[in-house]
């Protein structure tokens, strides 16, 4: 298994390199804007533009710039390791900004994942067991609603209702957990739920479908014939087998969310990775764009690796090859 993991980790590095190379080409070779001109002021002299270009490191050939970028990632730069340069917009180390924001995104993603698993899987299981019942139909109808409802609409509605009208939510913003646990929780609950509802609906529908299919398998009939109690048949034999695809999905979803839930972050003013990435693209803050790319690529590829490892653990038919 360890050889498998090491081999996959090498692939993670290769994939991240390829993705950063593509990003570099898109933003540095074919840039929509020239950051040097953008940050040299309203009425710059050619000398000022050249100076800004030099300070941003954009005066070197693109390949040299990319080489330096890679070198700094591995060996660090003036601001420490990993070397991600400095932000053109805030004029501060990208590393500090990244670590500051990724923590917010991690809290949002993990909290939301917890909520959607807590809602989605039980609802899916109950729907599958009570197939065709009013409970099944109504929960699947709700799931359809949340799958169809755009997150931005849900977020705005939730804010309007719970903050603007009922005053039971503190509204938007982020309070660090270290500053005030209660306030942190208050500020995170609504984003968690809004983000989780879409995923919970997916997971409920998928769990239901998988469990219905699993419960029709021969080994389930065998388990019943053996006289196992129904709850044991469902949970031990049915649910366990039907949840393996869910593991794959949660790994991918979490990986993607660690790259930022742009809309949720924007609506709830949570200054995480996604919102930062979007702003950085619009503001021409290329080092920030690259940093987010590296993180997202790492998150997705690593989560894929974890999923594959766990999958093989859950399903003995899968081998580490």
């Amino acid at each position, binding site marked *: 298994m360890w050889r498998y993991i090491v081999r996959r980790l090498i692939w993670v590095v290769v994939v991240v390199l390829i993705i950063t190379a593509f990003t570099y080409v898109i933003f540095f070779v074919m840039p*929509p*804007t*020239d950051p*040097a*001109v*953008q*940050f*040299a*002021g*309203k*009425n*710059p*002299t*050619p*000398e*000022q*533009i050249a*100076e*800004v270009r030099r*300070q941003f490191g954009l005066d070197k050939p693109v390949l040299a710039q990319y080489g330096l970028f890679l070198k700094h990632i591995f060996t660090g730069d003036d601001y420490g390791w990993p070397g991600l340069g400095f932000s053109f*917009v*805030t*004029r*501060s180390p990208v590393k500090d*900004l990244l670590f500051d924001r990724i923590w917010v995104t991690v809290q949002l993603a993990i909290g939301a994942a917890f909520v959607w698993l807590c809602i989605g899987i039980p609802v899916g299981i109950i729907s599958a067991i009570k197939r065709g019942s009013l409970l099944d139909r109504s929960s699947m109808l709700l799931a359809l609603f949340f799958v169809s409802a755009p997150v931005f609409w849900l977020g*705005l509605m939730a*804010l309007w209702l719970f*903050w*603007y009208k009922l005053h039971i939510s503190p*509204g*938007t*913003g982020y309070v660090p957990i270290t500053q005030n646990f209660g306030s942190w929780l208050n500020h995170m609950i609504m984003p968690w739920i809004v983000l989780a509802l879409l995923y919970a609906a997916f997971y409920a529908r998928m769990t239901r479908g998988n469990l219905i299919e699993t419960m029709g398998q021969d080994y389930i009939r065998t388990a019943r014939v053996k006289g196992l109690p129904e709850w044991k048949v469902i949970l031990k034999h049915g649910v366990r087998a039907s949840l393996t695809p869910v593991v794959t999905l949660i790994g991918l979803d979490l990986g993607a969310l660690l790259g930022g839930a742009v809309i949720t*972050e*924007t*609506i*709830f*003013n949570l*200054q995480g990775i996604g*919102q*930062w990435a979007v*702003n950085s693209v*619009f*503001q*021409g803050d290329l080092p920030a764009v690259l940093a987010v790319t590296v993180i997202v690529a790492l998150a997705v590829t690593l989560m894929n690796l974890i999923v594959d490892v766990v999958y093989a653990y859950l399903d003995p038919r899968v081998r580490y090859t």
Partner: protein
Amino acid sequence: MMGKRRQRLRLVGLALAVAMVAAACGGGDEGGGGGQQAPAAQKGGVLRTATTSFGFTNGFDVTGEYLGSAFTLYGALVRTLVTYKHVAGAPGNELLPDLATEMPQPTDNGLTYTFKLKPNVKFAPPLDRAVTSKDIAYAFQRINTQPLAAQYGVYYFGVIEGMDGKAKSAATKVSGIETPDDQTIVFHLTKATGDFGFRLAMPATGAIPEEVASCHKKAGDYGRYLISSGPYMIQGSDQLDVSSCDAQKPISGFDPSKKLYLVRNPNYDQATDTTRTNYVDGIKIDVNTNLDDIFNKVEQGALDTSFTDDAPPTLLQRYATDATKKNLIHQNDGDRTWYITMNWATPPFDDLNVRKAVNQVMDKQGMLQAWGGTVAGEIATHIMPPAVLNDQLKADYNPYASEGNRGDEAKAKELMKQSKYDTDKDGVCDAKACSSLVMINRNVAPWTNMEPVVVSSLEKIGIKVKARELDSSAAYTTIQTVKNMIPIALNAGWGKDYPDAYSFAAPLFTKEAIIPTGNTNYGLVGLDQAKAGELGIKFPAGAQIPNVDADINGCQEKTDVNERVTCFVDVDKKLMETVVPWVPYLWNKVVVITNPSVTKYEFDQFSTEMSITEMAVSNKETLS
């Protein structure tokens, strides 16, 4: 077909909204009438605001920062030799002494300016020392330092002796600035510069302590370590460890991606200041990425106002039609002209008659409606906003007048007939040069709303364009790169840097201003064969591109205000009638919505943003 109909309906809707907002705003700021009676302004409380993004161009480092919203903040943090009263309208454009004891009279034929400094102005903690002439001189040394990339250094390079923007270090003295003692500073100019006083009111020239700023050697670095000389300071400034460069850590009250909090500077002496009232005890600006949320909070009272963001049109409309809220809308002149650029070096705009015809045919009323109507501003009929010309040239000067500003097709066709691009003389361009012209635009409203109006106006005289909609930065970068040879663009606007016409004329129309990238002379006024060769572009055969450098420089030498303004009025007229570099279409208004908790709203005409030192609130919050 359907799309056009929808567009028309949208414009009609916008026009209705506009009419209501305009009616509510009445004739200008200051809140309109009716609604709630504001309580009297009192000192205390915290001005609570939020912005979707600071958007600073230079990390808030005063030496290079070039953003209006930063300028209004500097009004509270950085004292300059001279300044303005931080109020709206003409009084807000009047120069007054700030660090200086009085306004100086230039000597030596306008080449020498001597200032005496007030003795009791002190820097905020942790410095706690008096501001001296050397702190002013040091600010100029920073402007002159190449690695610090002072973004409006051109106003000093070649003007003050020894300033060329090429010094390697801020420690290098400027030969044209003397500081014979701590209270005296003398500037020696290379040429008489009539607007030099205005240039000394720019924030970059304010007092900067060398012992702190010298640690920050790259452009934008000093922004998070700014030591105040004004009535407020960045919260946590007093905790800055200035014992060494390594010990300095960013001041806690400013995080460019999250917040900027200002508190009172305990070393500030109101007796030294006649230009600021400083009502509030603190100013709180949080970054909130949700624009709707910002304005909901303003409405609910969780915020007093927004900082720099425009209110959504639907919200403006709602306020305008609510008798209890319409006095919460504030509308002031933005001193900015929005215009359509036309490139002299690209046919058919190398023909003066085509340029005139485009001006004559343009439906400016339709464009204004697309912008939201009179709440967005008034129709521009010439280059410089009236306030910049001391109201000596207003909208009644309109060389391309038409009924209701809807454009005059008949007159435009007469002009087009005289151009070489209308061979059959029917008033419609029939040359290939008039088809498929690339027209750059922004990809957001109101520019996208305005686009169909412009396209259909141009079609009337046979000019067919292909619009390319880009985000704001990309649109500017595209038209500012001369080699791109963009024939026409809708995205350009220019605001004054200071209330003098030179800050419009020089960067926009002089030959010297034409540079390969970052160019703002979009029309390439003054381009000649040699310059075209330098830029690597083709000079249009037979074109006679006018040059107005002598006119602008002639005005610039005048030190008498009236003579100077009259001179620039003539430049504006010449530009409009014989150069025709643009189609100016809008002089914008700045619209701000406040909560009733704002007991006094004021606008800073210099920065064209809200005046944070002159606003009062009724809340009792504190910033500790």
